[in-house]
């Protein structure tokens, strides 16, 4: 009953009649809010033609890069800029998000102009934690001088690169060798070359000792040393600093495991079982020469070693360690042992 009285009271008010006659949606609702992400706005002059926007666009035919045929412009190439096809654009804002120019070539709204924070300290190394080797002792978290720079998330210890100052304190306290790695940021191509150089030199050295390996009795290992100075001399052309080369080679040899395949022609009975099994076609058969192996094509997959009933192919695993003592010259210790696959005599 009370609600009916309330309604009658409301209806009797003069203002209600006016509101009823002039009922309309609020302007606020009809107008797009400021935060609304509309079709991207393109500023042609800023474009560097990297193509990141076209790669990021989820819609086919929504964005493409065009180049003007302007002969008067610099280099006679004209300017390149993205064109948005509004018929296909879904206004997701991905193009503006990935645009690397500063200020951005493509603009959609404030929400997509956020840049990830990063430290501006000029550091040579970037420190990362190898999750495979990390034992979660969290000693690095205690040693770290910056608050929250090393975080534990989802049972993983990680370094927040936006806060890290690259002091290297964590790498010193880490009890596991190689669990925290200091990676040089510069000269990535040079670093690749050094890795290839080290691996190829070591492989060639071991393959040269084939005859010794063939006579190696089972469950015996072969050891020898390679002087580091030769590799260092050659690597100096690839990387400028000796310290960096040493660091690089140490990291490579620590985890490196090389597979070595030996070939004993005298045992071969030309059964040709291995010819069909070889995945890369490195083993061929010739009526005059018999079964031949091309070492350059070989993948070291050890399939021939597992197939051969006469023990022509041998499989060995080599591991390395770089020792550095003050008394004697630096050298790489090499250990070669037969592979842990069934041995055929």
């Amino acid at each position, binding site marked *: 009953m009370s609600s009916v009285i309330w309604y009658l009271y409301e209806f009797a008010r003069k203002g209600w009649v006016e509101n009823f006659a002039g009922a309309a949606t609020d302007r606020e609702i*009809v107008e797009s809010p400021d935060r609304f992400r509309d079709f991207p706005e393109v500023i042609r002059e800023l474009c560097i033609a990297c193509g990141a926007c076209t790669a990021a666009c989820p819609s086919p035919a929504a964005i493409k890069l065009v180049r003007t045929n302007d002969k008067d412009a610099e280099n006679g190439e004209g300017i390149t800029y993205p064109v948005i096809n509004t018929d296909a654009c879904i206004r997701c804002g991905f193009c503006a998000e990935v645009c690397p120019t500063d200020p951005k070539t493509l603009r959609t709204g404030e929400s997509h102009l956020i840049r990830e924070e990063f430290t501006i300290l000029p550091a040579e190394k970037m420190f990362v934690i190898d999750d495979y080797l990390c034992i979660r002792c969290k000693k690095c978290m205690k040693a770290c001088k910056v608050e929250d720079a090393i975080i534990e998330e989802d049972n993983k210890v990680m370094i927040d690169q936006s806060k890290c100052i690259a002091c290297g304190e964590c790498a010193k306290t880490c009890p596991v060798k190689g669990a925290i790695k200091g990676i040089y940021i510069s000269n990535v191509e040079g670093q690749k070359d050094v890795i290839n150089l080290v691996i190829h030199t070591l492989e060639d050295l071991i393959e040269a000792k084939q005859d010794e390996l063939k006579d190696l009795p089972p469950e015996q290992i072969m050891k020898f040393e390679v002087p580091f100075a030769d590799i260092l001399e050659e690597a100096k052309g690839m990387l400028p600093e000796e310290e960096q080369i040493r660091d690089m080679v140490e990291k490579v040899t620590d985890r490196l495991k090389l597979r070595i395949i030996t070939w004993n022609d005298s045992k071969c009975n030309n059964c040709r079982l291995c010819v069909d099994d070889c995945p890369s076609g490195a083993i061929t058969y010739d009526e005059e020469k018999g079964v031949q192996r091309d070492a350059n094509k070989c993948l070291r997959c050890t399939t021939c070693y597992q197939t051969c009933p006469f023990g022509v192919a041998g499989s060995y695993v080599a591991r390395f360690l770089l020792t550095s003592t003050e008394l004697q010259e630096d050298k790489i210790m090499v250990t070669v042992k037969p592979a842990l696959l069934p041995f055929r005599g």
Partner: protein
Amino acid sequence: MLDSLKDVIRKSSIHACLINTGGCNGCDIEIVALLSPRYDLEQYGIYFHNNPREADVILVTGPVAEQWKENLQRIYAKAPNPKIVVAIGACPLSGHVFNQEGSAIYPPLNEFIPVDASVPGCPPRPTEILGALLAVGPDAIAAKGRQKE
């Protein structure tokens, strides 16, 4: 009594009909939002009837799938003159995400029926659809013959 009063009043309003030609329903949901109290389409004198025989405005969403090629023309023929067509969303304009190799879609829409207005977006805002309807609706119908009562 109320129904007959509504009928009398709705005679002068614009009758709209929605056709989804194989889209994802996103644009249709935006049109449903238009009917909700927040946007309230009927205050502008637009009435959703969904009957092509009485429609003044035909709203088309979706990228025109194989089966819709002929049916779309049939529906267009059934609507009384004057009639206007509004393409809603990116699909009737370009086929959008469906426009890929091997898909049986035939955009753009204006290859089949004449399109008077288009609203790009995936999906467009309800207010954008409303804006297009109001911009094109009353005037276009008047221009094509029938006077606004």
